[in-house]
């Protein structure tokens, strides 16, 4: 381009820009013209690492290193029984972190996700315990709650968060017909309450314009008190409700475990295969068959190994067999897949990334940035409610400090350790799952060695988080240098 004559003769417009322009590595779309092979995939991955997008690599390495250390510390660590407990210990972090990803992608934060989840689970537990929320809480609180949900519903309609508004409406119907005294109704009500909280939070941030840090800090404090009102300052146990208690403590049957794995792996393989075949038929950028099959095969191998191990009896006490994939593993995985599809395959997800990357560009492109922000907070709090349910499931009930303390911070740490950037624009639902495992593996490993004082738990967690944040900062610097 540089040796063109200065004036006069200029290259002719149109695709026929010269016989050699499409040959050679530097020419236009060189990378788009051939099918994406395994070599391409590896090269582009290495390239991403070099240009400051380490992806899941640091967190997986961290997981392996921690696993190696703990397997040295205690020979119990790698036992099937112990590994089988990990999902139950990490699910609530994973689910809350999954929701947080949506908000973090915008460069915002939701500090209230933990306590909001606690409030939602608290109301649900109270409703179950007293056979309907009306019987469990004071009339004033009940009607305040109903009015709050109506307000959120109206806000949702006004801000065009249709799905959120519909979910809140379902929650109001559950309340109207007293369905929250059944366990499934109660859990679903908790999620709808989370949705209502999310719309409210999103409105304060996106429409009123208060920084999300302040809004959610205030709500973080406020929800803790609301939880005490909801529980009448009495903890409520949920162990007698198998559906709820089972979330963090029970497993799928061996048969269903295999069905789950086969559907998941088969679905992924089928989707990528179909996508490659169709793309090639239409002359679009397509992945080579080898790449699709090798990648799908790797996933299948991992899935099969995990399922085989999960389907063995892992109870050290003979006579009470425990086996199957824990619900606390399968549900977060399904949620992760749903979140991934929403973020990468829908216009809404694309707009969310754009808003997080450059809000001004998104606005100029005609994207309703306020709507995107509100819906992101709505999704976050809905996930948080589910996280609160998982949390109370693993602790056996709704305690007075459900969702308070370090829980939100652990969830943020999980997302960051997994590779999500706090500056917005970069992150994947996958990060939440891997990060949550890293967070959960530390108390798990330390707990196995009574001689190792528990003080180390937070110190190690902090160190791991710091390392993850350093990797993020360094990779950002290397990518902005160019």
């Amino acid at each position: 381009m540089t040796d063109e004559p200065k004036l006069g003769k200029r290259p002719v417009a149109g695709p026929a820009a010269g016989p050699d322009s499409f040959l050679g590595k530097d020419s236009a779309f060189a990378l788009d013209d051939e099918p994406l092979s395994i070599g391409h995939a590896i090269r582009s991955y290495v390239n991403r690492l070099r240009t400051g997008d380490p992806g899941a690599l640091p967190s997986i390495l961290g997981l392996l290193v921690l696993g190696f250390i703990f397997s040295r510390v205690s020979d119990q660590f790698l036992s099937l029984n112990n590994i089988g407990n990990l999902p139950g210990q990490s699910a609530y972090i994973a689910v809350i972190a999954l929701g947080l990803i949506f908000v973090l992608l915008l460069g915002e934060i939701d500090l209230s996700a933990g306590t909001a989840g606690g409030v939602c689970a608290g109301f649900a537990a109270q409703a179950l315990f007293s056979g309907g929320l009306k019987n469990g809480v004071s009339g004033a609180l009940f009607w305040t709650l109903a009015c709050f949900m109506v307000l959120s519903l109206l806000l949702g309609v006004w801000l065009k968060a249709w799905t959120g508004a519909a979910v809140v409406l379902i929650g109001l119907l559950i309340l109207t017909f007293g369905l929250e005294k059944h366990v499934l109704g109660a859990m679903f009500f908790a999620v709808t309450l989370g949705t209502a909280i999310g719309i409210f939070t999103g409105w304060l941030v996106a429409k009123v314009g208060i920084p999300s840090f302040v809004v959610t800090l205030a709500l973080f404090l406020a929800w803790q008190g609301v939880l005490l009102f909801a529980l009448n300052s009495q903890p409520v146990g949920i162990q007698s409700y198998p559906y709820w208690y089972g979330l963090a403590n029970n497993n799928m049957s061996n048969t269903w475990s295999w069905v789950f794995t086969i559907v998941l792996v088969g679905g992924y393989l089928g989707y990528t295969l179909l996508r490659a075949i169709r793309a090639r038929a239409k002359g679009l950028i397509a992945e080579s068959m080898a790449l699709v099959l090798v990648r799908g095969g790797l996933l299948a191998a991992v899935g099969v190994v995990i399922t085989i191990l999960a389907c063995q009896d892992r109870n050290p006490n003979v006579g009470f067999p425990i086996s199957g994939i824990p619900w606390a593993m399968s549900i977060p995985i399904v949620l992760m897949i749903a979140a991934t599809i929403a973020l990468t395959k829908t216009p809404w997800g694309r707009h969310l990334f754009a808003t997080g990357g450059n809000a001004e560009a998104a606005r100029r492109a005609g994207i309703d940035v306020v709507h995107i922000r509100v819906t992101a907070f709505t999704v976050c709090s809905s996930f948080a409610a589910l996280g609160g349910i998982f949390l109370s499931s693993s602790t056996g009930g709704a305690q007075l400090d459900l969702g308070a303390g370090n829980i939100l911070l652990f969830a943020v740490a999980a997302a960051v350790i997994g590779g999500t950037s706090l500056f917005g624009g970069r992150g994947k639902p996958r990060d939440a799952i891997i990060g949550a495992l890293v967070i959960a593996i530390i108390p798990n490993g330390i707990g196995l060695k009574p001689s190792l004082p528990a003080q180390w738990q937070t110190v190690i967690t902090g160190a791991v988080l710091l390392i993850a944040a350093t990797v993020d900062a360094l990779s950002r610097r290397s990518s902005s240098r160019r």
Partner: protein
Amino acid sequence: MHGGGRQVVADPILETRDLNKSFGAVQVLHDVSISVYPGQVTALVGDNGAGKSTFVKCIAGINSIDSGEVRWQGKPVTVHDPREAAALGIEFVYQDLALADNLTITQNMYLGREIRRGGFLVNGEMERKAREVLTGLSVRTVSSVRQLVASLSGGQRQTVAIAKAVLWNSKVVFLDEPTAALGVAQTRQVLDLVRRLADNGLGVVLISHNMNDVMEVADRVVALYLGRVAAEVSRSDTSVTQIVELITTGRSGDIGLSRATASESI
């Protein structure tokens, strides 16, 4: 195409007639009449405060007009916001590009106007069309439309921003200082691209401070001086000296504003 064809003057596609605009007591635009022709690069030059930005904002509908009219394909139109301008076929590429670094070239080009089927994105289709547009503009410096914009050079980013603007069968493109932050080779690329846009039949309005760029790529030069059109000259009949004189004093020899008008504004 370029050269001889330029003499055959088609009807202007976009035209302003006696545009006036004041901010309070300050009149920023005085009877500005400018025409944009398809297939031509119209350079809009002027010193800081000459009214270039205000003029562009009036066309985009960001600023309202006090009096005068904007005519699109011969018919008077009123534009209230940039989206209405886009619906007519007028696109604007601003200095701060408005690209999202964390998205790919394709994703940026289709931002806000994604092709969707059943509520889901059709990525393959968008990638194919993005390639077609870039190929049509003879963009040869991009190795994949799946590249993140963060990994592009300044010139490549400018190229993507321009390609994004012309993706939608737009007919007029306003380019605000497209070469301001670029090196020599990249400026070259972008100027070639600007020329090709015009050769493909678009009306291009190039807002620039750089006289070399203007002399190289423009067909006509419109010089603004303190809110007035000082002169509208054909590039082949003018020189850098003359344009600079028009920009700084509003007149040059026997063309430009009358001596009285030129001095009254000061």
